[in-house]
């Protein structure tokens, strides 16, 4: 890349703010082209495909809303929505509760905090497929280390991912292990920004540690917790690697989430038009979910302001 300026940007001496704004936007042009090619175009194309009966060899006929009507009456798809919501609810609540607790702990200074924090955030950087494999081995009902640990403290062994009733909580366990650190980092950032005055006056008033956490810390970091909840919700809704590697949606279809259903329709059954309709519905679900949570976040901000 040379220091010589591209033609449009060379006009930087113009003092007009509106002109300058457009010049600054030129910096974003190459990225916008890339985003258009790999993100926006596929999007538009997906909507187009969702209205067709589209085979993998390229045969296609326009079918209007048929794919969407078929989804409505597809009990396997409806069930996958239920699995997704169940998985998502658990995969939001548990990491957030644990992550807030971990953040409160790591907010204090103690010996070796840096090293321990580095270890604590390692799971969120680890390759999900590799970790899923290790958990698959740990979940093994006869030889797995988890059942050994359960039985050695006197608890009954579990079937973990091999039973339709326990498969989703077991998968959530992996998700909790993976993503609690991200919640912790976000909330830790919030804790670092808190003022110290409310604590000082609470101490003078004789507040207990729990009272201070409940009535000062928690309301003040609530906006950060909501950010963590939103991010967790989006990531949990689209979890793929963990579920695909450990159960592939099984046993039966007990852990088949929307994302797994989508994968099977597209790349196992090659029913491209139908899969595209799933994408459209899935995206609507994600957007609605995000909007609800954003609205909740505005509410927490409002409460704090008062």
């Amino acid at each position, binding site marked *: 890349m040379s220091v010589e*300026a591209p033609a449009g940007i060379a006009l930087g001496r113009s003092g007009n703010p509106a002109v300058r704004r457009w010049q600054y936007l030129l*910096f974003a042009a190459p990225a916008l082209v890339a985003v258009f090619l790999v993100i926006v175009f596929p999007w538009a194309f997906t909507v187009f495909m969702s209205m067709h009966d589209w085979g993998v060899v390229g045969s296609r006929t326009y079918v209007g809303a048929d794919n969407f009507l078929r989804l409505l009456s597809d009990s396997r798809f409806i069930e996958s929505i239920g699995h997704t919501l169940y998985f998502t609810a658990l995969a939001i609540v548990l990491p957030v509760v644990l992550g807030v607790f971990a953040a409160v702990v790591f907010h204090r200074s103690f010996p070796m905090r840096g090293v321990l924090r580095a270890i*604590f955030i390692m799971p969120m*950087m680890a*390759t999900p497929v590799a970790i899923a*494999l290790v958990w698959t081995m740990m979940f093994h009902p006869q030889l797995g280390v988890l059942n050994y640990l359960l039985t050695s403290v006197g608890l009954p062994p579990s079937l973990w991912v091999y039973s339709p009733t326990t498969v989703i909580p077991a998968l959530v366990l992996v998700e909790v*292990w993976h993503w609690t650190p991200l919640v912790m980092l976000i909330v830790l950032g919030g804790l670092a920004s808190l003022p110290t005055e409310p604590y000082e006056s609470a101490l003078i008033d004789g507040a207990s540690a729990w009272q201070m956490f409940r009535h000062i810390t928690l309301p003040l970091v609530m906006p950060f917790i909501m950010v963590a909840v939103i991010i967790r919700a989006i990531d949990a809704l689209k979890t793929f690697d963990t579920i695909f590697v450990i159960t592939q949606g099984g046993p039966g279809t007990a852990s088949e989430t929307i994302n797994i259903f989508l994968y099977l329709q597209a790349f196992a059954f090659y029913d491209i038009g139908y899969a595209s309709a799933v994408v459209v519905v899935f995206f609507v679900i994600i957007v609605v979910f995000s909007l609800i949570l954003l609205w909740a976040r505005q509410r927490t901000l409002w409460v704090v302001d008062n």
Partner: protein
Amino acid sequence: MIGRMNATGPLAQVKGAFSVSAKRGFEVLFGKLAFAFAVLVIVSPAILVFLWMLSLSLKTEVENTAFPPVFIPGTLTLQNFYAVFESSPFALYTLNSIIVSGTATGLALLVGVPAGYGIAKARANGIAVLILIARMTPGLSYLIPLFIMFRFLGLTNSLTPIIITHLVITVPIVVWIMIGFFENLPRELEESALIDGASLWQAFWRIALPLSRPGIVVAAILAFIFSWNNFIFGVVLAGRETRTLPVAVYNVLTFEQISWGPLAAAALVVTLPVLVLTVVIQKQIVGGLTSGAVKGG
């Protein structure tokens, strides 16, 4: 927090008698112990899973399938690692992963760093939201149209389509982190350069860019790691010769169901570089992760 409260809490101050000091000492000790226990509980799941992975990869198959499990290997062996590299072209897959993630990160920096600058300076929140939506969308939903497009263009069995799809991960991460970085950069230097007659491009290239090196390093490392970890694009698009490491590891699972040693060894080979990188640069990436709260795919 509990420990500190007990140590300096109002109760201790009010009573303040001699008999209290012993009790207070006990409370401090108890608080410290409780706190140490909390730290242990929080950190141990991470340590234990990684140690178990290490243990499985260094043990013989007999010890790996023993019950009760053998935690400390009786005989250390590297046999599992040899098995992984002998039974499949793992070296090739490692090279594939380096090429894919390296190129996707490089291209993302090339377009993403100027974009982050432009968006930050123009306060173009609309574009920032577009990037955020890209972050929200499941990776699979890009895959169907791109898969069809690559088949149409005859771009199968090469690394090119995989690199292109990895841009879906790397470009938003880089842009998002760089927006945050450039917004916090002091603007006086650039403005005085502009007054002295520099063009916007020169102000960016000569002044803002050198100052933003720490941000670029963070963005590059995070983009590389999340591209390296990505599984979904590879599993759909990769052929026998073009697998990335996560896909290769997944294939070890399907071919050798019960062979735990090589499986754990393969898993370790994939994720160890990322873990080492995380520990080495953890201070720098913490800021990047929280500002962007990034995760690809």
